[in-house]
């Protein structure tokens, strides 16, 4: 099959609000360009740019800045990507199945031949990264992440960045099992509880769980958003932040839909269905800024203990309403859950008081967010260790946490 060259910077997918006359946009372009041109490159400024309104503006800029955010040197990349062995590859069949079903992720109107070329490249990137990192395991949805990088950066750069991302931000999703992925989802309810106890209690009562947010988390929303500009805007944000930021963003979306949720019938299926269908017209900039605020107010370390508790309670509370006609309210786990809700309502009130006192200014927020992001790039190995061993591991004894 004929390979098309990368769409990369010349793609028709470039940025948002392209009025060059906009003075704020002009200023931002200048700031980014300056940060890229100083030696050493000012990564802190680039992070701030990726987070703040409009993100990185164009795919051309993304090609230059995304590698910096992930600390991938672009000058030593091999000119030619190594060949990929497809036969006898344990992941090939699954990757092929998913890539063949990813038509929707390519720009509408792209000629079939070009799209098919890109799909071949997509398969190669995935198999190449997995082949070089045998500790990583393919998951359905990984292709949604990789296609985003491919469309913005082209095959060569995308391979390098995806490899870095897979060993850092996405590492936990690529374990042999999904246990750690499930555990990361456990951060969602504690965040929602702090933002909106009423919605939290409603969702607990409905026993909706957090699986509605699974594809959001592991594809960085690439699987569920149809407008590519929104996807790359979010990727700017997530690349500049802590790996748990997609969970904060998920919480912010739930909060944004508060009225719909509370109007919904309080049962698992209805709430799951409502939340799974993500609105396409979300006010992204507002939500990004709120997610950033939440992260600063309730950093993962503060939520770790509760997330671990969620895990054990989930196990205990997973007795489902079946075909029985027993009055629900008498079941012991319902009673337990009610007690827990009462207890949590108290805690929620305390958290509410904290929100009131912990409103950072916008500037401070970006600095703090950027610092968090920086930790990821610089001390990635250390961070992974800390996160997986202490914060994210559900199995550890709870008294380990202060």
């Amino acid at each position, binding site marked *: 099959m004929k390979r098309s060259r990368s769409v990369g910077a010349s793609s028709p997918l470039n940025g948002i609000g392209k009025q060059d006359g906009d003075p704020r946009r002009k200023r931002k372009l200048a700031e980014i360009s300056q940060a890229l041109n100083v030696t050493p490159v000012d990564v802190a400024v680039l992070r701030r740019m990726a987070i703040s309104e409009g993100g990185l503006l164009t795919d051309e800029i993304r090609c230059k800045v995304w590698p910096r955010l992930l600390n991938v040197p672009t000058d030593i990349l091999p000119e030619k990507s190594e060949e990929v062995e497809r036969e006898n590859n344990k992941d090939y069949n699954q990757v092929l199945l*998913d890539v063949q*079903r990813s038509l929707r992720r390519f720009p509408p109107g792209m000629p079939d031949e070009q799209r098919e070329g890109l799909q071949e490249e997509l398969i190669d990137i995935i198999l190449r990264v997995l082949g070089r990192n045998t500790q990583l395991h393919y998951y359905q949805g990984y292709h949604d992440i990789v296609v985003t990088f491919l469309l913005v950066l082209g095959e060569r750069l995308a391979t390098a960045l995806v490899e870095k991302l897979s060993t850092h931000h996405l590492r936990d999703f690529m374990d042999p099992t999904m246990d750690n992925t499930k555990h990361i989802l456990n951060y969602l309810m504690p965040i929602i509880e702090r933002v909106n106890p009423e919605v939290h209690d409603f969702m607990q009562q409905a026993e909706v769980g957090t699986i509605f947010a699974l594809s959001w988390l592991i594809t960085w929303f690439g699987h569920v958003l149809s407008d590519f500009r929104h996807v790359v805007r979010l990727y700017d944000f997530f690349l500049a932040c802590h790996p748990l930021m997609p969970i904060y963003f998920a919480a912010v979306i739930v909060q944004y839909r508060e009225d719909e949720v509370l109007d919904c019938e309080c049962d698992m299926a209805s709430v799951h269905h409502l939340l799974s269908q993500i609105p396409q017209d979300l006010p992204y900039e507002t939500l990004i800024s709120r997610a950033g605020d939440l992260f600063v107010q309730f950093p993962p370390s503060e939520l770790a203990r509760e997330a671990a508790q969620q895990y054990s309670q989930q196990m205990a509370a997973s007795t489902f309403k079946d*075909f029985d006609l027993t009055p629900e309210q008498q079941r012991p786990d319902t009673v337990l859950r009610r007690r827990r809700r009462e207890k949590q309502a108290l805690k929620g009130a305390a958290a509410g008081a904290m929100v009131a006192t912990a409103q950072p200014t916008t500037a401070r927020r970006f600095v703090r967010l950027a610092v968090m992001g920086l930790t990821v790039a610089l001390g990635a190995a250390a961070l992974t260790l800390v996160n997986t061993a202490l914060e994210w591991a559900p199995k550890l004894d709870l008294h380990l946490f202060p």
Partner: protein
Amino acid sequence: MAKQYDVLFRLLLLGDSGVGKTCLLCRFTDNEFHPSHISTIGVDFKMKTLEIDGIKVRIQIWDTAGQERYQTITKQYYRRAQGIFLVYDITSERSFQHIMKWASDVDEYAPDNIQRILIGNKSDEEEKRQVATGQGNKLAKDYGMDFFETSASTNYNITESFTRLAEQVLAANKKDLDLLRASVTDELNLAALEEEEGITDGAAASQKGCWC
């Protein structure tokens, strides 16, 4: 408020990645077919109401991701199901062999009186067939299941198979259903009399959601 249905069942689609679970569902509920549907990540469901023996049966059909690693997530949903479709692809021997694994997981995690049905999908792709109809029949017989070869693409046997499983679930829960009907009819006799017009079934006045 007029009641839309009498009973609610949950059915679950299981089977390897790419056998056509989502396509079966879309054909059944929306009569649509997209050959290159997107991969299912996690779980979601669609609903449809059938009428069986004068009972309005609302079925909630849960669709699942097929990749093995997702099973730790999808098996949480087995317990709430009353019926399960075990789906393979007649053009994939491998997906057929995996039915045994799916079936044993169902035995382990689903309720005891779960109803199961075996589906060999993509029956329109005869030239690529790897699993003979007889093999499907035999496996279904061994497991005591009904068996259908289907095609979401040509709409072959879709309504038939979904209706069959719904009928089986209804029959399996008939005792509960009769009990419920009796008690509800007693309690709501007056209301039922008042609302008589338009209602053909005693259970129609039962409260929505009371046995899901």
